[in-house]
Structures are given as C-alpha cells and as structure tokens.
C-alpha cells in the first residue's frame, strides 16, 4: 500500500510527465515520425495502470468497457463499408487487396501530412456541429460560418502587421466572434419565433459562400497580376501559422500547426461540455428541454450560447485554412468543410475527442484515395462510396434497437 501512497502523493508530477510523453509522441507522430506511436501507447498504458492502482478496479474496467462500447458501432460500420467497397472493386475488375493497400499506405504513411491538412478544418467544423448537437440543435450551416472565418482571416491577415504572438490570437478571436455573430440571427429567430435552425443556418451558409466571391474581388483578385483572378492578395508571412518544418526538419513543408490547435480545441470543447456548468446546461437542454425548464435552466439562453459557440468553432476552421495552408482566400466554392463537419460529428456520436479521430479518418480516406487513384488507377469515388456507407451504417443504428426489441418480444410472449 505504500507504493500506492507514494504514487498518490506525487500524482501531479506523474501527470505532467504523462502529458509530456503523450504530447511529444503526438507531435512526432504528426510529423510522420511514426515511432511516436510508441510514446502515445506508453502514455495510455501508464495512465490506466495508474488508475488501476489508485481507483477501484471495477470502475476503471467499466470505464474502458464503455469506451469500447461507444467505439463498437463506428468500427463495425467501417469494417462493413470496407467489405462493401471490396465487393464493388471485385465486380469492376480491380484487386481490392492492392487497392486498399495503396489507400492505407497513401493515407496513413506516404501522404500522412495531406491527411492531417484535410483533417484540421474538419475537426473545427465537426466540433461546431457536435457542440450544437449536444444542445439538441442542428448547425447545418457550418459551411457559412467557415467562410465568415476565412474572410475575416484574409481581411485581417493582409493588413494586420504586428508580432505574430499578438496578431494570430487576435485574428482567431475576431474571426471566431464574427462567426458567432453570424449565428446570432438564427439563434434569435429560434428563441423568439421557433424558426428552425436547419433552415436559417443553411440559408445563411449560402449567403456567406456567395458573399465570399464579392469579398475576394475587393481584397485583391486583380486579373492582371494573378493567374487566378478569384483569389485575394496573400496574407502577410508574419501572420502565417507556424510550420512544423521550422522546428522538425524532417516534416513536410506544408504541414502547419493548425492540427495542434484543432486537437487542443477539441479537448477544450470536451472540457467545456463535461466539466463546466454551461456544458451541463447545454447537455440538459439537449437531453430534455422540458425537464431543463422545470429545473430552472433557461433554454433560450442555452440555445443562444450553443449556436454562438458553434459559429465560433466553424469560423476557426476558416482561419486555420487561410493562415495555415492557403495563405490567401480562393474563390473556390466547393471545399465542403462545413458539410463534411456534419459527417465527422455524426460518426463520432458528437463526442469532441472522437471528432479528432473521425476527422483524421476522413482526411486519410481523401488523401489515400488520391494516392490510390494515381498508383492503382482505381477511381477514387470508391472512397466516397465507403464514406457514405460508413455514415449510413452508423446513423442507421436504430436497426440495432429494432433487433433488440424483436428479441425482447419473443422473451415476453414465451413466458
């Protein structure tokens, strides 16, 4: 028991060490130094080992069990979807083994940095959708808030010339607040008149997307100096997000620190939802608005906060793209990060930390799909088929409950 006591006494130090271990592992892994995985695994093992020593074993076991249970449906969906994709490939005359090999190699090894570049904005928009979902709201207009954030980042990034430690946080904050503001009217309409947020935010999304074309014209887009007229002037280099290559020479030159910000944001959102008062109120309203009311929780206020925070998070995705990857705003109206955010949130059952993994999966499927198409000449629409099937299987989980009820029926009648 003394070992236990000593551990308990120094638990803060142990946790700091764990944090460093896991953090360095994650950064190594992100920069394609895959041995980082060992660090991460070690950290996880130590974490649970520590819990085993200090807490009741049954509680820790049931925790692990519930995590595994939550992952069961998405994992089963992915497996089935991969099998269906294989059948499609066999029918169309491709070898699924080599194709999937290329998909995996491209997505998780060769073009891992592309997967992460794809994933970073998805994490933000996925968090946005998930957060609103927790309050029982469907923020379908994440795409619009994304464009608001991107425009704010481009507009400020071109002119705002100061130390990056000041400018970057200010740009994130300003863009985020504009994104929140953009959801102000849908929230107001929802609370005052009951207008459904699916309609209002979607309409607002279209407005923002097409407004961005006008915006681009006014912040550059001079056809005589640019080969691509539908693009703003570049953002000042001092406003660029830090690139990994500046610290880790082996990292890809495009990979920027946006993914780290995204992961940290996901953990912050998780904290906000599970460990704070406002998070509790949001979950309560999402779980049962009528009961929340009789417990003295203001549903109107909560709906407002949820939509504003969702707007903020989506706008961060736009900032991440402009300051991190593109360094200018393109007039490309089909990035679809907002819409795909809905998919990753659904797949993660709206768990903020889960969103990190589903976003990376989505990003890797895209990156790997391109690699597969190039090397194996398999059309990468197979990736979209897999994505669609996964989502369908996960969203259609009521099938399981239907089976459950059927079984129950047999039991009661046989008595």
């Amino acid at each position, binding site marked *: 028991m003394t070992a236990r006591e000593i551990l308990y006494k120094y638990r803060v130090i142990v946790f700091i060490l764990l944090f460093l271990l896991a953090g360095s592992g994650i950064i190594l892994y992100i920069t394609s130094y895959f041995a980082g995985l060992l660090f991460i695994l070690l950290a996880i093992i130590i974490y649970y080992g520590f819990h085993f020593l200090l807490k009741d074993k049954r509680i820790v076991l049931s925790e692990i069990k519930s995590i595994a249970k939550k992952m069961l449906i998405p994992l089963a969906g992915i497996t089935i979807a991969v099998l269906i994709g294989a059948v499609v490939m066999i029918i169309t005359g491709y070898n699924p083994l080599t194709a999937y090999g290329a998909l995996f190699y491209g997505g998780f090894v060769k073009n891992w940095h592309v997967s992460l570049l794809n994933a970073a904005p998805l994490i933000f928009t996925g968090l946005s959708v998930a957060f609103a979902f927790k309050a029982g709201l469907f923020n379908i207009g994440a795409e619009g808030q994304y464009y608001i954030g991107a425009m704010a980042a481009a507009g400020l990034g071109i002119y705002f010339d100061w130390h990056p430690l000041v400018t970057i946080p200010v740009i994130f904050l300003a863009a985020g607040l504009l994104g929140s503001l953009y959801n102000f009217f849908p929230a107001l309409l929802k609370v005052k008149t009951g207008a459904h947020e699916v309609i209002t935010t979607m309409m607002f999304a279209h407005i923002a997307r097409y407004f961005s074309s006008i915006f681009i014209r006014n912040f550059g887009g001079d056809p005589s100096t640019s080969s691509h007229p539908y693009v703003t002037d570049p953002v000042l280099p001092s406003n660029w997000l830090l690139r990994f290559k500046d610290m880790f020479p082996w990292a890809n030159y495009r990979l920027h620190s946006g993914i780290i910000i995204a992961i940290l944001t996901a953990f912050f959102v998780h904290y906000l939802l599970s*460990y704070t008062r406002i998070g509790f109120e949001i979950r309560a309203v999402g779980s049962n608005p009528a009961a929340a009311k009789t417990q003295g929780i203001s549903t109107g206020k909560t709906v407002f906060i949820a939509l504003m925070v969702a707007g903020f998070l989506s706008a961060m995705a736009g900032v991440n793209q402009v300051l991190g990857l593109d360094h200018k705003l393109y007039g490309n109206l089909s990035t679809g990060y907002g819409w795909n955010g809905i998919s990753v949130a659904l797949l993660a059952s709206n768990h903020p930390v889960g969103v990190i993994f589903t976003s990376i999966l989505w990003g890797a499927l895209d990156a790997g799909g391109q690699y597969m198409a190039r090397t194996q000449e398999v059309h990468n629409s197979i990736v979209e088929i897999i994505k669609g099937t996964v989502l369908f299987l996960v969203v259609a989980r009521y099938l399981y409950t239907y089976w459950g009820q059927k079984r129950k029926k047999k039991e009661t009648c046989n008595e």
Partner: protein
Amino acid sequence: MEREKRKDGICLRMENISKQFPKVLANENISIYLKRGEILALLGENGAGKSTLMNILYGLYRPTCGQIYINNHEATLLSPKDAISLGLGMVHQHFMLIENLTVTENIVLGMEPGSWGFIDFKKARKIVKELSEQYHLFVDPDAKIEGLSVGQQQRVEILKALYRKATILILDEPTAVLTPQEVDGLFVVMRSLQERKVSIIIITHKLEEVKAISGRVYILRRGKLAGERVTKDISKAELAHLMVGRDVVLTLNKENRITEKKPGFTLQNLFVKNDNGVTALNNLSLEVCPGEIVGIAGVAGNGQKELEEVLIGIRRIEKGNILLTGKNISRYGVKKRIQSGLSYVPSDRYRYGLFLSMKVSENILASSLDRKPYVNGINLRLRVINRRSEELVTMYGIKTPSVHEPVSNLSGGNQQKVILAREFSREPVVLVVSQPTRGLDVGAIEFIHSEILKMRDRDTAVLLISMELEEIFALSDRILVLYEGSIVKEFDPGKTSHKEVGYYMTGGGER
C-alpha cells in the same frame, strides 16, 4: 357455450392482448368484444392503456401477444391501411387534416374517385355531400379546413372514416377539445351512426360521457381490465371506484400534528388556460400550512396538469396570485421559485422530471449545479458532486450500479426516487407532488409515501395532487376536491368516505 351464443352480432374481438413497451407493460392480457351497432366506452385514467389498446386495433402498434378477430376472422393488422380495409376508422385526439385543403379534398385524399391519375372532383363532392346528409354530419364540402371550428373538423374526420366504409369507429377522447354544445352535437351524430349499424368505441376518462352515450363500458386500470359493465346498471360513483380504486391498502402512521395555522403556500383566485386556450383553472384558491399535507382529489383532466405546471412556473397565470410564506411569487421564473423554496415532483416524470440519457449524479443534482458548493467559477466540482450524489443514492435507497449510470438504465421506481432525492433534499418550504406513485410497485409506493410524510414532519407545506383516492386518503390532512378547474369541496379524511369524495369528484356537488 356462452361465447358461442354471444358470437352472433359480434363484429370485433380482441383476445389476450398484451403490449410491452421498453419500460412499461402498457396492456396486460386484455380481452374485449364489440357488438354490431353498439356504442362501447373504454374508460380509464391517463396512462391506463386505453389509447395503446386502440392503437393496436388500428394497426399503429403491433401487440406483443394476443389475437384480433374482425367479423370472426383473425386479422393481422400491420398498419392503419390494413385496419381501414377491414372496416375500421379512427378519429384521433389531434386531427390529421390538411389545413389548406377543402373538406372534400381531405375526405377523399388517398382514395380519390376518378381514373388515369385524374381526380373526379365533381363526383368526390357529390359523394361527400351524400354521406354528410345520410349521417346528419353537416359540413360545407367546399370549405377549407383552416376556416372550420374544432367541432366541424371532427365531423370531417368522422366523414373521412365513413368514406372509407368504416363500420367500426374508434373515437379517441373526442370531447376533450369540444365546447359543451359541440359535445351535444357529437352525441346526436353518434346515435344516428348507431342507428345505421355503425359500431363505435369511445375512449374517455369522463364519467358523465360514459353514462350519457355508451351502452356498455370496459374499465381499464394500469394496463389491465378492471371490469366490464352495462352502463345503465352502474352508478358514476361505482365507475369512479373501478377506475381509480387501488387494491393495495396502505396503513401509514400519521397523525395530524398541526396546531396553529400559519401561512405556507397560498393560491388566490387563480385563472389559467390550457393548451387549447380554454379555461382550465377557474378561480381556484387554496391554502397549505407548513407541516400539513393537502390532497387534491379529482378525476384526471379537471385541471391537475395545468395546476402543477402553473405552480412550478412553466404555464402562464391569466389572473390571480401565488404566495409563498406571504411573498408573492407569481411573477417569478422557475429558477427564482426554486430558490425561494419550491420543490416539484411532476406527474409526467419522463417529460418534466428526468434527463434520461444523463448520469444519475447529474439528474439528482440538476437544479443545484449552478451554485456552491457544486460549482467553482464555471467549473463543476465533480468530486463534490459525486460524493453528494452517492450520499443521496444511499439515503433514498436508489438501486444503481454507480452514480455515473444513465438514468434510462434504472427501473421506474428508482427513477422516481432520483426525482424525489433531488426535490426533497433541497429542503423546500413548499412541496408540490403530483401523481408520485403512478406506475410503481408496492414497495416503491410505500417508500415514497413515507418520505412524503417525513417531509411534512419537517414542517414542509405539501400539496399532493393525485388521481388515486387511496393515496389521497392515506396521506392527506385535508382533502380538496378539484372539479372542472375549481375547488368544489373540502373534507377531513377522517370524517368522510371514498364514496362521498367520489361523488363530488364527478360533479355530484353541482346539483
């Protein structure tokens, strides 16, 4: 033998019907029959299983076990479509009409006369007109639904069923939305349908209606058949007893310990409307003193729901005041009322009481997670929350694997105990308890009753709203009878009988 004799003239039999929902057994082994041209009443309280039984008959639910025979042929009803094709028609409580289409269009919708995909509107209009004249159901076939009164819309619903050649008509609480004049009109229509050999099943919880219109009545209680009677042979009081009576008699140690009358909780001349904008509480006044339990007896639907909602603050007061130890709280929101010392155990615990997908600890402290010691800044102090909820779980004997379990995994009795723990542990000045033991087993009922008495012994003013007379008699220091939104009579439980209270509950005091 007897069944053989009865067989002629019987157009519908439901035998040994049971329906298991995930949490409740809504119907348990119910057998009923219906004769041709009969008006049959299905009487029972809210949640007794009447609507479930009829929804099974109409193909909306599949029975867990049991058989249905229509005209002596076994019927498998997979959807309302099957039911309609077998001559069944149902008029729901909430009408299924399309507001901006005309009466004719609504009636023929889905079975339009005409050919090649074209609708013969002239013919449709003629058929509707003939039908409405034949059954004395007068409505303008060209009027739009949105312009019709509720009573007329109901006629359209009935016509819709008749147009589909219904010979068995199910009316789900048809009078709930009608004015007294419209009710009389409906009864005339029902009788004329009866003359034309249409069989009618009317679902209701109102005793007067059973007496006024039906020939025979089945009484349902808690999902089981509590009796079958010929209407003219049974009195309202007996019906009431069958409907609300309970087989379990509880003896509780209770003595009236009130010595001096201090103001605790006072309602002054309350006027409140229901969801349809009809007056639900009509000049209601009452007073509950600290250390006293006042029981509100009444048949469901006489304003109980509106009363509990207006007290916690989720329904608007039209006129009148609510005083809590002399302080007027009528204008307070829910939060401020809770902080002033009001606690509330709702009758609909799933709608108003619980967050089913959330943890026991979050449910048990839901109303306190905005203040110390559970909150520090914006942070929840999980360790304090967990310790306190564990304490409450032991105190109230809640059976759960841990406080982290989602409430949906608990049994009904334990779910109710979670609400009790939350509301009682706040140490309220006033406690509003509505239907605290509905759907629970005997053990849970006894525990909950003794907890309510404990609250009284701690000088809480308790207002108990219940539709179960046994419960009212077992707990109350005074009984007030609620009828049509007003208090019509006050009783001392020691000096009255169930019969007498039942008489006033069903409007007997009016004449």
